[in-house]
Each structure stands twice: as structure tokens, then as C-alpha cells.
């Protein structure tokens, strides 16, 4: 391969990339054949583990009486902090943590008698059947010397502090003198926004099936977004070499960020399996899912925005306060999007944290950008109304032609087209510029919109392509498909890159025995995996071409390799396409059944500058700077709501999203991702909140009956469109991810529509009927 990777250009003869192919894994999923991580029942002697978790949020375990539980038939083992086998490396030890690729918090339960959060695992029962294990776990008599917990940053006992850094962003960041800019601005807006605790709640709960095939060979079927990260982390914790652990995730029932990490149950299952000498399956119950795999933290943000009388931004001062765990300084980095979304001369951001009796919060679909966009996009709406401008106009007025954080040009940006197309599809021009004026019967009607953006994060990974002489191919990468469509889009890319029909491709993923690639998260998988597969196919061609030009029997004999190209599975001369042959002929004469290629695909600023920008200590701005471009996807959401002024209910009646995210590999699966992200955001806007009791610090609604996620009847017709981009800077396929940008701006679009409908600004999510009614009682 050349060191400078080639860029995928759509062939003159149209292929399947960019076509709305139906999901290749659809058949397995609609027939029930798709095997998820808790469904490997054929493992010999498989038994069940069940966790017993703490009702108390803070204290010390004084005793666990297991006598009744032990007497139950079928019980094989009971683990507590007193007998849990020791981990070789533990998240509790900061030194050990360095060995982990994906440990979500600096705490591992059942290592001592300490209880730090409600729902913390205290014991694990292993039994022959699920029912035996469940019943025995219920019979454990747990005594805890309870202490008074701290529920959240709002708890009077909580003390807030400014951390050194949160997720690689410094606790305080300054660009220019934002305080002065705000102070001197002719237009000043100050607003505080609240965001409730949210839970990912993938429909498939966390599940780990652990099978020790030999004392030094562990296979784990796990609900993970990253098999390689889980493999590395598990190996370190269990004292094994990485290659001694195999992690398999063929199908994943949604992730949304919570399955990106090795949570305690993932480690407990192999420990139990080792102890009982049998494969062990451990599945979290739905309530355990709320305290087993993280959450989006409750938070408030105050945004002080200064602008000129014409509506041009002068400076923004942003402060965020949120709850974190006793051990970690974790907060979503909301400031990132506020800093870069508009042509903003000065910005300052401060994070405040307060430790409480909760587990560490974690990555949740568009971490930081999602709640951050709520604040900036509502405040921009305020600015528009205050100055009598159209909301789109105020955004165009502040359009960032280059990245305001570093002055770099964008690798590509089609946000203006997104606004225009979205406005057209939605009928934005029909909007009454005054709020509280549009009615449909007794319902108040409102239109709202918001900008979306999500960065192109760096990532890299490998792929292998094996092309058989008969025109079939096996393509492999240890990626995962969260339901995003990875199986399908990679099949399409491989088909075009190899010049064979998609039904000839078998794409295998979700296993650490396949080429290593990074996790599916941060919207990186589509760009990274497609690039590595495309480049691996190029290697196959290079090998075949080299064979052909030295093969006396080939029509291409004697040609320069550089003059030969592949077109629809045929090797031919660039200058004289008639001269050439099918690749199968070359292989046949060489007595080869297949030819294999491998390659590394890189996504983001490391695509063109692998060495310089891959330095792990650099932040995103520095990496972008090394590459010379800032890389983001952009888009816009448009929303119509109907508000019942008597009941306070808000219904989303219409929805339009227009996204520009590089090359769209499959508009059908991409559309599904965008509506999915929008619906996730509509949930956060209107109904989703996990409520922690202020005294007991325990969730009061940890189930799907009382944690409301949107249902079919909540969702209207949704229209999605894409602005196609040709971006040669982000990766070899020109792809930017869409899994996360789809949720950014959604809560603001809904809130802006509610403001347009009612004349009331709701700044606390979710906008439940009680809040709407309270607002309606206030003057507009």
C-alpha cells in the first residue's frame, strides 16, 4: 500500500454504496435467530448468577447471613465481599487503572464492606436454574450499618468544587475575555438550564456469559460496544494475557454509551464461572440496569450570553454544576459544543462538581453535546425573539465560517444547506413570527428549530478481506453493530470495493479473534470500519495486479502496475479498458483459491497525520490543529408541538431533521439512526427522568413503568434528509458518523417550539405537564 491512502470515489458504474439496502442482518432479527449475549444456552453445564444489590445508599455491611440461601436446592455458590476471589488489578487502585482500556469508574464493589450507592452489588448467587438463583438471592439476610447519604449536588450536605479536569477538559477554560465581553455587551441574556438524570435503557439489559474453556482460556459473550476494550480490561483485572481472553458480541440490543464499559457484572461473571467450574450467565434485571451501567448525570448550566444589538455574539460565560460519584471527577463536557457552534469571539467555561452517594455517570448518546446544545440553542432562540429576528436568521448571522476555537477551516460544513433544506421541508416560512399566536382548536401550536453538531473523534482499527476466486468474499473486523447498521454498510462498502454483488459478501464482526478495531462509540464506527475495509480491498487489488502483470498468460502481462485498475471485478488497463481480465482468471492460473488483504483505517485528524495527531495527550483541538482542519458533522432539527394549555401536555406533531455528515453509506439505515436519535431526544425533552429520593439517595422509579421512554403513540411522522458531502479529510470513505449528532439539539428544538406555542420558556428537562402548567400560570 502507498503510505497516502486512496480516497473512495464512487465508481462510474454505480454500486451499492449510497443505496438504501435493507439490513443484511434483518432476516436473523425478524426470525428470532440473531443470538444476543445471554442466549448461548448450549454451553455445557451452563448455570445462572444473580446479583443481590444494596437498598441502602451509604454504610457498611455488618453481616450477610447466607444460611437459608445455602439450603436451597441447586445453589452452587454464594459470593460476598468476604469470599469474592481477588482481582489481579482493580479499578479501586489508581495505579492499576492505567492497564484498563475501558473501566467506567474507580470503584469495584464486593471488594470491601463499604456501601457507596444504592444498587451496588453486595452478593452474587450461582445456581443451576435462574429461579433457584433468584430465590436464594432473595433469602440472603443483609445487615448494613447505614449512614446518611448525599443524594445529589442539590443536597445541602453536598459541597461543590471545581475539578482539575473532567474527561480531558480542564475544569476552567478561557478563550479571550468572555467575562468582559459579556459585561460590556449591549444585549445580555442570562439563563439557567436543568437536565434530569437520564438512563440509557437499551431494550437488552446488560448480560455476560463467561466460559472458561481452559484455566488460561476464557471466552465471554458480553453486551459490549467494544469487544477489544472489554478483552483488554477483563484480562488485566483477571490477571490474564490479553490473548487468553476472547470476547464475542454478535448482536447487541442497543447501547447508547452504557455498554461501552466493563461494569462490575462483566467481571463478576467470569469470577463466578471460575469458582464453580461451569459456564455462568449473569443478566441484569431492569432495576439493576439503572444502577449497573451508569447514567447521564443530573445537571444545571448557567449561560451568560452577550451580543450586539444586531444579534452578533460577543462572548459566552458557561457554568455547569453536576453530581459525581465519591471517586471520580466525571461530567459530560457540555462546553465543547457551546464553544464551537457559532462565530463566538470569547468563551469561558467552569465545571462544578459535587460528590454524592451515586455511581459514576457515564457516556450517554452525544455526551456533553446533547445537554450543552440545550443551553446554547435555547439561548440563541431567546436572542432571536428579543431582537425580533427569525431563529434561523440569528444563527446565520453568527455562522462560523471557520472553527472559532482555533481558527482552522472546517474539513467540510454544509450547515447553511441543512437550514435551508429543513426550512423548506418543514414549511418554516408559514411560522407566525410572534409566539403564542397559533392555535389548532384549543391546542397551542408552536414551531421550533435547533442546530446540531457532533465532532469527528479520532479512532483507528484493522480489517481483513479475503476474496475467493469464485467471486465470494469474507470480510472481517472486530467491530460491533449496536443496531446502527454496521453489518449492512460494511457489506455495501466491501461489495463496491471488490466489485462483487453484496450478496457475495459475508461480513463478520463482534469477536476478538477478528482484526482488532476500536469500540463502536463516539460515532466513529461507520467511518473507521468502512475505511479499513475499503483499504484492505485495495490491498487485494494490488496483490492481484502484481500477479497479473508478471503472468505471461495474462492480457495485462508487461503492463505497469500503476496503469492497471479494477472496475466491477475486472482488472484492466486505465488507458485501454478493453485489455484486461476477470480477477478469478488470475487466481485460477496461480492455483490460488483466494487472496487476502489487510489494512488499518483511520478516522478523524489522524487519517492524514497519523503520527503527529495520534498523541494521546493531545486534546481534540490540538489534534485538529495538527491535521489543519476542524472536523464536525452538522445538521438542523425542526419541530412542531401541540400544547394543551389546560392539561399541560406537549405532543410533538411533526419533525424534520436534515443532516450533513459526509458520505451517507446507506440512506435507509442512516434515516433510521436519525429518527432514533431524535426520538431519544424527544424522550429527554418531554418525559425521561430518574428521580433519586433526596433522603435515601435511592432511585424511586428504576423500571420501565415509571421511567417513561417514548412509545409509538408519542411519535409523529418524521422526515429526514441528508446533504451529501465530499470530505477527503476525515477518512478514506469520507464518512462522518450520525449516531450521536441525531440527538444533539433535539431537546432545544422541542423547548423552542413550546416557547413559540405558549410564550413560556421552559428551561428544566423533562418538560412534564406539571412544569408546563406552572409556566402557563405565569404571565407570558
Amino acid at each position: 500500500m502507498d503510505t497516502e491512502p486512496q480516497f473512495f470515489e464512487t465508481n462510474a458504474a454505480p454500486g451499492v454504496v449510497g443505496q438504501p439496502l435493507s439490513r443484511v442482518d434483518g432476516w436473523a432479527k425478524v426470525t428470532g435467530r440473531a443470538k444476543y449475549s445471554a442466549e448461548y444456552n448450549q454451553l455445557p453445564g451452563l448455570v445462572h448468577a444473580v446479583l443481590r444489590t444494596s437498598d441502602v445508599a451509604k454504610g457498611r455491611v455488618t453481616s450477610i447471613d447466607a444460611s437459608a440461601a445455602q439450603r436451597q436446592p441447586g445453589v452452587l455458590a454464594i459470593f460476598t465481599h468476604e469470599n469474592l476471589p481477588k482481582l489481579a488489578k482493580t479499578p479501586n487502585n489508581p495505579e492499576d487503572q492505567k492497564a484498563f482500556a475501558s473501566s467506567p469508574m474507580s470503584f469495584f464493589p464486593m471488594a470491601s464492606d463499604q456501601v457507596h450507592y444504592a444498587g451496588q452489588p453486595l452478593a452474587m448467587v450461582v445456581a443451576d436454574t435462574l429461579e433457584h438463583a433468584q430465590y436464594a438471592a432473595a433469602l440472603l439476610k443483609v445487615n448494613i450499618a447505614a449512614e446518611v447519604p448525599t443524594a445529589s449536588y442539590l443536597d445541602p450536605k453536598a459541597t461543590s468544587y471545581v475539578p482539575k479536569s473532567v474527561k480531558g477538559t480542564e475544569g476552567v477554560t478561557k478563550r479571550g475575555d468572555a467575562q468582559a465581553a459579556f459585561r460590556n455587551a449591549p444585549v445580555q441574556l442570562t439563563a439557567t438550564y436543568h437536565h434530569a438524570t437520564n438512563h440509557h435503557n437499551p431494550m437488552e439489559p446488560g448480560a455476560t456469559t463467561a466460559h472458561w474453556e481452559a484455566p488460561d482460556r476464557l471466552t465471554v459473550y458480553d453486551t459490549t460496544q467494544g469487544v477489544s476494550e472489554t478483552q483488554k480490561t477483563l484480562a488485566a483485572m483477571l490477571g490474564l494475557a490479553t490473548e487468553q481472553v476472547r470476547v464475542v458480541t454478535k448482536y447487541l440490543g442497543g447501547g447508547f454509551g452504557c455498554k461501552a464499559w466493563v461494569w462490575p457484572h462483566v467481571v463478576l461473571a467470569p469470577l463466578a464461572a471460575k469458582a464453580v467450574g461451569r459456564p455462568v450467565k449473569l443478566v441484569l434485571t431492569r432495576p439493576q440496569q439503572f444502577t449497573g451501567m451508569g447514567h447521564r448525570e443530573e445537571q444545571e448550566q448557567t449561560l451568560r450570553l452577550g451580543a450586539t444589538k444586531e444579534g452578533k455574539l460577543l462572548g459566552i460565560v458557561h457554568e455547569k454544576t453536576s453530581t459525581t460519584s465519591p471517586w471520580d471527577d466525571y461530567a459530560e463536557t457540555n462546553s465543547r459544543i457551546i464553544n464551537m457552534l457559532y462565530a463566538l469571539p470569547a468563551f469561558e467555561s467552569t465545571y462544578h462538581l459535587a460528590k454524592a452517594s451515586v455511581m459514576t455517570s457515564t457516556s450517554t448518546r452525544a455526551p456533553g453535546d446533547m445537554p450543552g446544545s440545550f443551553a446554547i440553542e435555547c439561548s440563541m432562540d431567546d436572542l432571536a425573539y428579543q431582537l425580533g429576528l427569525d431563529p434561523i436568521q440569528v444563527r446565520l448571522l453568527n455562522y462560523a465560517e471557520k472553527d472559532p476555537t482555533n481558527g482552522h477551516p472546517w474539513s467540510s460544513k454544509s450547515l447553511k444547506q441543512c437550514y435551508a433544506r429543513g426550512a423548506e421541508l418543514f414549511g418554516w416560512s408559514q411560522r407566525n413570527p410572534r409566539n403564542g399566536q397559533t392555535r389548532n382548536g384549543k391546542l397551542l401550536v408552536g414551531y421550533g428549530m435547533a442546530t446540531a453538531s457532533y465532532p469527528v473523534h479520532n479512532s483507528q482499527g484493522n480489517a481483513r478481506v479475503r476474496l475467493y476466486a469464485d467471486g465470494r468474499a469474507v470480510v472481517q473486523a472486530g467491530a460491533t453493530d449496536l443496531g446502527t447498521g454496521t453489518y449492512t454498510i460494511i457489506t455495501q462498502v466491501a461489495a463496491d470495493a471488490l466489485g462483487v454483488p453484496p450478496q457475495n459478501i459475508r461480513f463478520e464482526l463482534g469477536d476478538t479473534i477478528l482484526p482488532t478495531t476500536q469500540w463502536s462509540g463516539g460515532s466513529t464506527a461507520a467511518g473507521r470500519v468502512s475505511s479499513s475495509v475499503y483499504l484492505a480491498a485495495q490491498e487485494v487489488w494490488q496483490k492481484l495486479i502484481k500477479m497479473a502483470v508478471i503472468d505471461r498468460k495474462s492480457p495485462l502481462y508487461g503492463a505497469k502496475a500503476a496503469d492497471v485498475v479494477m472496475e466491477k471485478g475486472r482488472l484492466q488497463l486505465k488507458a485501454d479498458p478493453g485489455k484486461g481480465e476477470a480477477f478469478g482468471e488470475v487466481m485460477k492460473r496461480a492455483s490460488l483459491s483466494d487472496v487476502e488483504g489487510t489494512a488499518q483505517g483511520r478516522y478523524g485528524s489522524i487519517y492524514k497525520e497519523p503520527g503527529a495527531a495520534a498523541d494521546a495527550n493531545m486534546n481534540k483541538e490540538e489534534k485538529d490543529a495538527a491535521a489543519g482542519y476542524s472536523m464536525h458533522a452538522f445538521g438542523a432539527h425542526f419541530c412542531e408541538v401541540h400544547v394543551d394549555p389546560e392539561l399541560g401536555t406537549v405532543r410533538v406533531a411533526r419533525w424534520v431533521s436534515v443532516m450533513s455528515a459526509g458520505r451517507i453509506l446507506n440512506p435507509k439505515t442512516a434515516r433510521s439512526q436519525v429518527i432514533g436519535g431524535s426520538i431519544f431526544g424527544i424522550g429527554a425533552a418531554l418525559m425521561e427522568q430518574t428521580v433519586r429520593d433526596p433522603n435515601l439517595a435511592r432511585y424511586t422509579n428504576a423500571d420501565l413503568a415509571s421511567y417513561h421512554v417514548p412509545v409509538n403513540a408519542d411519535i409523529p411522522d418524521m422526515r429526514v434528509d441528508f446533504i451529501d458531502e465530499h470530505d477527503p479529510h476525515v477518512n478514506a470513505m469520507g464518512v462522518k458518523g450520525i449516531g450521536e449528532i441525531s440527538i444533539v439539539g433535539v431537546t432545544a428544538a422541542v423547548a423552542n417550539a413550546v416557547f413559540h406555542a405558549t410564550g413560556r420558556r421552559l428551561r428544566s428537562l423533562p418538560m412534564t405537564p406539571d412544569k408546563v402548567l406552572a409556566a402557563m400560570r405565569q404571565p407570558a
Partner: protein
Amino acid sequence: MSSDLFPNADTPPLADNSRRSFLKQSGGILGLALAPPLASQAERLTAYSKVIQGATDITLRVNSQAHTVRVEPRVTLLDTLRERLDLTGTKKGCDHGQCGACTVHINGKRTLSCLTLAVMQQGKEITTIEGLAKGDELHPMQAAFIKHDGLQCGYCTPGQIMSGVACVQEGHATTDAQCREWMSGNLCRCGAYPNILAAVREVASQSSKG
């Protein structure tokens, strides 16, 4: 492992070889949930099974096939399908009747298998997602889900499809609004709702024509 917390480490017992009385079990966490339905179903239970205490052999007709399986009275139909019959197409999303992932048909009616005890389903015709297609020929609802991309991760999908089939049969898919309402017992966190609606409505319009 010498701790006394491993009582059976040397001789693991076989599944369900116990003979515990039902009363003893019902004193546990499942007691409340079990008592009322069992009291009213007691007659039928004794008719199908010789004993009602501990694990018993029961026969379930699933997808037109009879399966004899040894279960305790507290075992749900969902766990029987998933853990004993290896019919894992039916999914567990909540185990509490809140999500619809476990939807199956019992005598043609959609039923949440996590809220259904296996012992009470003898003599009934149970259909799961595995029984919907005829060999390689997909049920029209399955084909419509693929066509309209009514799925992403696929975990809610078997339940959505079983509900969708029933929804059409019930006559609850005659308008978009009605169909949305009657499909709202099946949560989809990936947010495939508009596509699910399109799939169910298409099958409904085809079957009304046919």
C-alpha cells in the same frame, strides 16, 4: 474454595431434582404473585400434571410442536422458552410486563410471556417468533419489517412483530393513530416507531384487500 458459602461445590445438583413443597416456595418473593392465579387454576393444573409441588413435567405446544419440560410452578413462560427450550427469539426486556419484548401468541392472542406461568399454558397453542415463518418464507409482517427498516438493534423486534400480527388481526391497525396506540405496549429504545408503523399499516392494508 473451602468456604462454607460453597455448600455444593463438589457435587452440584442436577436441575430441578428437588421436591420442595409449593407452599414453601410461595413464602418467598414470588408468593404474592403466584397465589391468586394458581388458586383459580388449581383444577386444571392437577388435570395436566400429577403433582403441583416442586418441579413437574409439563407439556407445552409451541409452534405446533409438543415439548415436555420439567419446571417449577413459579417458572414463567418466558424463562421456559428462553432457558429450557432454547427458543431465545422471545426477548426479556423487563420481566415485569412493562416493555412488550416478550410478546407471544397464546391461542392467537398476544400475551406477555413474562407475566405468564408456564404450568398454566398446557393444552394451549403457543406461537413464538420462531414459528411465524413457513420455512424460508417469511410471514408478511416479518418481510414488512425488513422492507420498512422497522428495526435497528432487533431486540424489541420479535415482540413488535408478534404484536403487529395480532394488532392487524384484532382490527386495530385501520388508521395510523389507532395503530400507534395499539402498538404502544411494545417499547423500542432504538426509536424505530415510524418504520414499525409503516410495516404494520402496510400488512393491515394488504390483508384488508385480501
